[in-house]
């Protein structure tokens, strides 16, 4: 009894340690964002009168809201297209085994491709078409890895829906496509939403493609956030606020996605 209680205590202590390691950086950035500029480079100051200067400047005087909007537009477009196109294809892969194992493997293999392979030609394409620093390049680039991933997730979710469901619907007079659209699709609603949100998060977080393909007024949030560390000291409070702006939406989204993530990653794997 003693031993078990001791072991349980040790487990709890270790979990708390991990918790502190994860949460402390968030806490520290939040604290920093509330510090007046003369305290930002003083790590020993924990208690002070919080000021909203950094937040006010980031929200009202910087272009961060514009970059936030860019991230929303790009991520939203990529997620919607991926779920729409992906669910059509995933249904076909799941029910008719279209293309067999090679097709499924090809979808997975697209994930292994290092982004530099694609970014060079997408960059040159946009350069010659004079479409650099527009949304086109970044959306193309994001679709190249998010569309296959979302499709992969959806295959797994469709596999879980019993076939009897649409067979019954077809007996009732639906065509196959109607059965897909009106019966099967509503059944994977939660999974499709999770896949879409995950795709959105991946787009929102991407820095590599965004750095090369966006710029000026089309910068996305990560590129803008990276730009804060140019002058030392004074900008750092704003950087902290901008970082929190970039983190909070995805952290919230993550709570919804987590449940589906493992299942989704398993995706079209057939054991």
């Amino acid at each position: 009894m003693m031993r078990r209680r001791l072991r349980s205590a040790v487990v709890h202590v270790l979990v708390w340690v991990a918790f502190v390691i994860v949460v402390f950086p968030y806490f520290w950035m939040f604290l920093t964002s509330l510090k007046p500029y003369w305290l930002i480079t003083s790590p020993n100051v924990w208690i002070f009168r919080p000021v909203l200067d950094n937040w006010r400047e980031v929200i009202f005087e910087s272009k961060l809201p514009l970059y936030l909007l860019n991230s929303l537009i790009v991520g939203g477009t990529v997620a919607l297209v991926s779920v729409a196109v992906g669910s059509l294809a995933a249904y076909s892969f799941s029910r008719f085994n279209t293309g067999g194992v090679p097709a499924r493997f090809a979808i997975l293999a697209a994930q292994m491709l290092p982004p530099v392979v694609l970014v060079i030609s997408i960059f040159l394409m946009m350069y010659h078409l004079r479409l650099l620093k527009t949304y086109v390049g970044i959306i193309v680039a994001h679709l190249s890895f998010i569309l296959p991933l979302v499709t992969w997730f959806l295959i797994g979710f469709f596999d879980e829906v019993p076939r009897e469901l649409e067979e019954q619907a077809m007996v009732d007079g639906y065509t196959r496509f109607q059965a897909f659209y009106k019966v099967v699709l509503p059944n994977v609603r939660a999974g499709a939403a999770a896949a879409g949100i995950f795709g959105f998060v991946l787009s929102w977080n991407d820095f590599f493609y965004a750095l090369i393909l966006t710029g000026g007024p089309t910068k996305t949030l990560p590129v803008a956030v990276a730009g804060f560390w140019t002058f030392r000291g004074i900008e750092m409070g704003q950087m902290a606020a901008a970082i929190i702006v970039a983190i909070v939406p995805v952290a919230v989204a993550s709570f919804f996605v987590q449940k589906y993530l493992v299942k989704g990653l398993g995706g079209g794997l057939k054991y």
Partner: protein
Amino acid sequence: MGRRAIVPLKYKMVIPLVLLLLAVLIYPMGSSLLVSFQDYRLTALRERHFVGFDNYLRIPRDARFWNAMSNTLIFVSSAVFLEFVFGFGLALLLHRRVRMRNFFRSVLLTPMFITPVAVGLIFRFMLNSEFGIIPYLLRSLGIEVDFFATSPLALFSIVFIDVWQWTPFMMLLLLAGLESLPREPFEAARVDGASAWFTFRKVTFPLMRPVIVVAVIIRMLDAFKVFEYLYVITRGGPGNSTESIMYYIYRVGFRFFRMGEAAAMSYVLALIILLLVFLEFQLLRMARST
């Protein structure tokens, strides 16, 4: 109408995907391959011409390429190893009866959802030798370190950051693996009076091996792409000691504008990654057969 019906629904439904992937994935892949056989400099676009394998033949003699490759391999192996150890440890902890288990699980997973740029900047700020909180706390213990100033340490500071961000991913997959294990072998082990360590070594670990291999492969593929931490913290320095392969290719292509060489390098990188994945799949097969 009559003709269209010949295309079966199963193909119709994949047409949008195929067309889109042709445009955003296959075409760029092909055109990159073409670029890799050209002298293609953005600074001298008029002089663009095919040079055969020249760009590829230059790579074996490019010391900086191999320096970046070796940095990347050191980074990937140490980061993924540590993430595996800590991730497995956390998964085992959370697999037990822990108060507020779901709360802890959710919070511990958050780092993997954050943009790496933010993570890099957070740690650049917290590890800064002048005003970072961590060096400050270490100083009060009498330890003086500058995390990004000296050669081997800078790379391992980057490893440390990667471990912070991606251990949760390992934990997520391994915890799911633990939860899906059959119960019988564990009950049998308990009936036989096996110690916890013995059960872990002889029951848990072998049963988990396929999950472990998959988790490690996914993580390695991703770790190969390390770029953001370097971009916002070290820029490859001091010297070239933290320059990763992605960062080097980025420099060649988008700082020096030598697109042909960058394209060739990126294809060599793709081949190396493919080779590694192939090796690991062999490993997976071995793990399954034993």
